[in-house]
């Protein structure tokens, strides 16, 4: 009986009951299963429903990234929080405002931009960001040359980022140069934009860990506005090799055992020579891109290379001529 009517909320259940369209038992069951009153109207105004398939794919993309376990955990935490707050809102319960501005701390090449880009997509698919695009800027894009210029430039970048993520790389550089520097003005403009365009964009400040911490210490007002801090730890040698293999496999190449060994040696020396800020997926990528070009040079004079040869990167392709 109760299956033929589909009340949208509690008030409708009760109305159907008094109109004789529902039995008492069905009404009780529906009270348990449907949402509280007034929600139906609010829900209609809510953003379009999320696309679970696209979301699943984007999450898979995130999980495919090598390492970054802490980051993935935190992203899951944020997503769970957002999801539960949404459901609480639908049930008419008090909700915490979802402030998702973030600080990314870590060395270059540890995945900050990549994660930010994927995060934008995920939040878009969860209907939290209308567009979910990433606007990547640095100091020079924000700070102007004369008084008033900075606010103008910064506002322009914020405008571009509305509906998505504004990602400021090496954000600590906004604080250098002391009181008279226009960087200060950029920060003030950003803080104001965060108030004016609440929920319309997400601001991510990224940079080296120590510099970012110093930056937040000298701007105590900022810290409280960024509830989410994610630390990107340097990749281990193992993870770097995994990244290399993934990179190579994606492009349908293969590393010969000799090439693998050589790559390992190269990375080891780089780490031991370190370069405090090694740990760098970008370096791996650069080495491999160079190797792919090198392989092409090697094969271009071979009259009929086999399929296998076209795929194989050998030791001699790595790091130019004969560093064997």
């Amino acid at each position, binding site marked *: 009986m109760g299956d033929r009517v589909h009340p949208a909320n509690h008030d409708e259940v009760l109305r159907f009951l008094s109109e004789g*369209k529902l039995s008492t038992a069905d009404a009780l069951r529906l009270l*348990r299963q449907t949402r509280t009153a007034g929600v139906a109207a609010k829900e209609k105004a809510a953003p379009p429903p999320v696309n679970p398939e696209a979301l699943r794919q984007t999450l898979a993309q995130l999980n495919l990234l090598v390492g970054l376990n802490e980051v993935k955990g935190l992203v899951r935490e944020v997503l769970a929080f957002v999801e539960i707050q949404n459901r609480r809102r639908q049930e008419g319960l008090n909700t915490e405002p979802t402030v998702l501005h973030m600080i990314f701390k870590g060395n270059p090449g540890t995945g900050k931009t990549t994660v930010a880009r994927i995060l934008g997509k995920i939040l878009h698919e969860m209907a939290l960001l209308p567009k979910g695009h990433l606007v990547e800027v640095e100091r020079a894009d924000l700070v102007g040359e004369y008084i008033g210029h900075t606010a103008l430039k910064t506002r322009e970048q914020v405008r571009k980022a509305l509906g998505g993520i504004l990602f400021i790389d090496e954000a600590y550089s906004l604080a250098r140069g002391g009181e008279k520097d226009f960087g200060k003005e950029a920060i003030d403009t950003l803080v104001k934009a965060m108030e004016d365009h609440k929920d319309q964009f997400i601001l991510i400040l990224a940079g080296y860990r120590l510099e970012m911490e110093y930056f937040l210490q000298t701007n105590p007002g900022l810290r409280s506005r960024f509830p989410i801090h994610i630390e990107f730890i340097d990749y281990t040698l193992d993870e770097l090799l995994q990244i290399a293999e993934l990179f190579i496999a994606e492009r349908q190449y293969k590393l010969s055992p000799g090439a693998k060994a050589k790559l390992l040696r190269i990375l080891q020396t780089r780490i031991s020579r370190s370069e405090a800020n090694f740990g760098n997926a970008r370096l791996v990528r650069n080495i491999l891109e160079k190797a792919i070009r090198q392989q092409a040079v090697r094969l271009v004079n071979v009259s009929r290379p086999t399929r296998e040869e076209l795929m194989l990167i050998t030791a001699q392709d790595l790091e130019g001529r004969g560093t064997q």
Partner: protein
Amino acid sequence: MKRCIIIGKPNAGKTLFALSFAAYLGANPLHLMFRHPQNNTTSWKTFHREEAIQELTSSKPHHTRNLQQLVVPLPARKGAKRIQLIDTSGLVEGIPEQKDIRRAMAQTLAAVRDAHLILHIIDASRVKAAGAVEALGEVDYQVAQFGQLRDGYLILANKIDLPEAKEGLDIITREFAGHQIVPISALYQQGFKVVKQFVQRRI
């Protein structure tokens, strides 16, 4: 103030329990507020316990057709607290033909939805009475499922003073395994101590 609602089938003894329990907790005279489902109005009346029982209860089903609320004191660890005791009209299986009863049903369920504590009264003496309005039915099972979502949900197996109720209590215990069940007699105030403790612990 927490709202404690008393629900159950017609003639399960809800009104008698409400009045008797209120008196047991020390409310006398009883100030009752009646909420009429027909025109959404309220009225007040003050009774002595005996009068109230005389006027508001009956041995026939469907005597209560509106919500009857009364505020009763409840001694708590620190000073006295108060709860709102809400007596309701009996829940009928299926779709009642009379419009008044349907409206009363809707009013009862609206109050159930907003209640903190649910006291679910089942007539233990008539559990198996085939075709009788008091008999156990789908509504009772749905109430039990609904009750789990509240702060407190207690089944009161009423009329335990009657000899037939023994078997009925066994059936209730079996059918509602996992729920807290207290055998009571609204007429003789049996089992009220346990009910009082249950309510006290949840306010």
